[in-house]
């Protein structure tokens, strides 16, 4: 009878996640079950609706990353209509997206990840908290907590910067088929630049040094969490001359291109009676809770039958902006460096 550990819900993630692992007699994980516990039927809600509505409905999938959904929806609509927005509109969308990434990454490091590694003040919501294997000394811990709190403010300011251009965040309004509804004036750009200066200062003087503190204290974490070893990115941040992070694939270290036709979504262990292995362009989503053998609402996407990792580490490795190593700490570090890179790029885009 294997030893089983179940964590439900996994806290400090966006979404509803349950993890169950089975351990052998030497406490090594033999099987792991990742359960997505939420199903909202967004795929079917979109059917029989005007396709432009997707721009707003899909944003409600996530309050942290709604811009990605808005941009994906609007691009799908524009491609279907054979339309290309102007470079100015594209740049405005890129700036909206980039600003959102800044707040998102700061959130991830300080407000989602950090409490795994430090003990916070003995108050709600930090207490009760995780308290195993805490290695950071008390003065650095204090510094990290202070930056955690300041990070809440800086995040808000990054969102305000985005909202100047997007109408509001989350659930942006100004991204629309054809371009962006909001015209830009010099006064607004100046306002955005001052927000950007604050955020950049935080990234360079607090976020990056704090990542250093963490990675030095947990340097053995550079050897765990190797993942599947394959990376994929669809590319992000359109500019006049191509994307800042180009799309691409690293299959066991070999650079390849991305062909969306090669993606399949498998549902053997998922609560769906629709066929398994469909390409998303011909996808079906027929929910069937209680299906025998199924344990999750998540479909299992595969590229050419292989598991691929996406995210900051993938984007940075594929584009040669990171040294290519893979681990728990590499992911945290790559995310921080990506944040810095985006903040730099924003300065250029705003000019």
């Amino acid at each position, binding site marked *: 009878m294997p030893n089983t550990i179940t964590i439900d819900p996994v806290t400090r993630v966006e979404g509803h996640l349950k993890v169950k692992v089975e351990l052998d007699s030497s406490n090594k994980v033999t099987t792991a079950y990742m359960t997505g516990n939420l199903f909202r039927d967004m795929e079917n809600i979109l059917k029989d609706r005007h396709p*432009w509505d997707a721009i707003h409905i899909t944003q409600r999938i996530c309050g942290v990353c709604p811009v990605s959904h808005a941009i994906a929806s609007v691009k799908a609509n524009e491609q279907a209509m054979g339309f290309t927005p102007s470079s100015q509109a594209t740049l405005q969308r890129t700036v909206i997206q980039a600003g959102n990434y800044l707040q998102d990454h700061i959130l991830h490091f300080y407000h989602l990840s950090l409490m795994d590694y430090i003990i916070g003040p003995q108050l709600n919501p930090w207490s009760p908290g995780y308290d195993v294997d805490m290695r950071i000394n008390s003065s650095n811990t204090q510094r990290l907590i202070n930056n955690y709190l300041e990070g809440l403010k800086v995040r808000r300011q990054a969102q305000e910067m985005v909202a100047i251009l997007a109408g509001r965040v989350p659930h942006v309004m100004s991204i629309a088929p054809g371009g962006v509804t909001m015209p830009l004036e010099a006064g607004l750009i100046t306002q955005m630049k001052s927000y950007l200066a604050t955020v950049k200062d935080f990234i360079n003087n607090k976020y990056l040094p704090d990542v250093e503190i963490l990675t030095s204290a947990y340097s053995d974490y550079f050897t765990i969490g190797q993942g599947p070893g394959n990376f994929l990115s669809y590319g992000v941040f359109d500019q006049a001359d191509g994307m800042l992070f180009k799309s691409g694939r690293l299959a066991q270290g070999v650079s390849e291109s991305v062909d969306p036709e090669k993606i399949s979504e498998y549902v053997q262990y998922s609560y769906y009676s629709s066929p398994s292995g469909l390409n998303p362009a011909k996808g079906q989503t027929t929910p069937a809770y209680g299906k025998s053998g199924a344990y999750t609402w998540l479909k299992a996407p595969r590229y050419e039958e292989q598991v691929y990792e996406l995210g900051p580490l993938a984007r940075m490795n594929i584009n040669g902006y990171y040294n290519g190593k893979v681990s728990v700490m590499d992911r945290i570090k790559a995310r921080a460096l990506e944040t810095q890179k985006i903040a730099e790029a924003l300065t250029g885009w705003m000019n």
Partner: protein
Amino acid sequence: MLDAVNELGPKAKYILAIGTCASFGGVVKPSTYTGIKTVKEVLNGRTRNPIINLPACPAHPETMVGTVVTLLTKGLPKLDSYGRPTQYYPTTVHNNCPRRHTEMVDQYGAFGCYRGIGCKGPETTFSCPLLKWNNGVNWCIDKADMQCISCASPSFPEGPFYYGGMGSGDMGSGGMGSGGMDSGGTSSNQSSSIVNSIKSKSKSY
């Protein structure tokens, strides 16, 4: 989550249904499978005080914090027939909209009133023109030049959102000139004929 609501709801002094999903069903309401229920549908008649609905999508932080402060300092705020605090849901978006007496325009991105092309401000009760979003830097209509999609109302996400659906099927008619700058494939001939058809179908205001 349902178990928690059922167990704790009857014991709680006050209950806030935060966001349109909790108040009215929200974006998931059209789903025939999920069986989504509002807080009121789950707890009706079993709560110590009336449930306070704070709809908006996303939920507006000022309504949340303001209502909590009112609860702590004064007690239950005055609620309308939908359970919303009248302080934050006094009247329609339209009645407070700064574009109200401006010229009606036929596309988003142009400065003016979007009532003729499907803005849902007139049928949505919320004070967002006054509260605005993100610390007051902007909101959906003013400066963003986009219509209201009624995210705070019981009917959300009833659509189509853009142009009341009449601009469908043709990019030329829906052109979002990004503020007068080159937007690529727009064709103004199309826009005006769509506007004429909308005007002839809509009531006079």
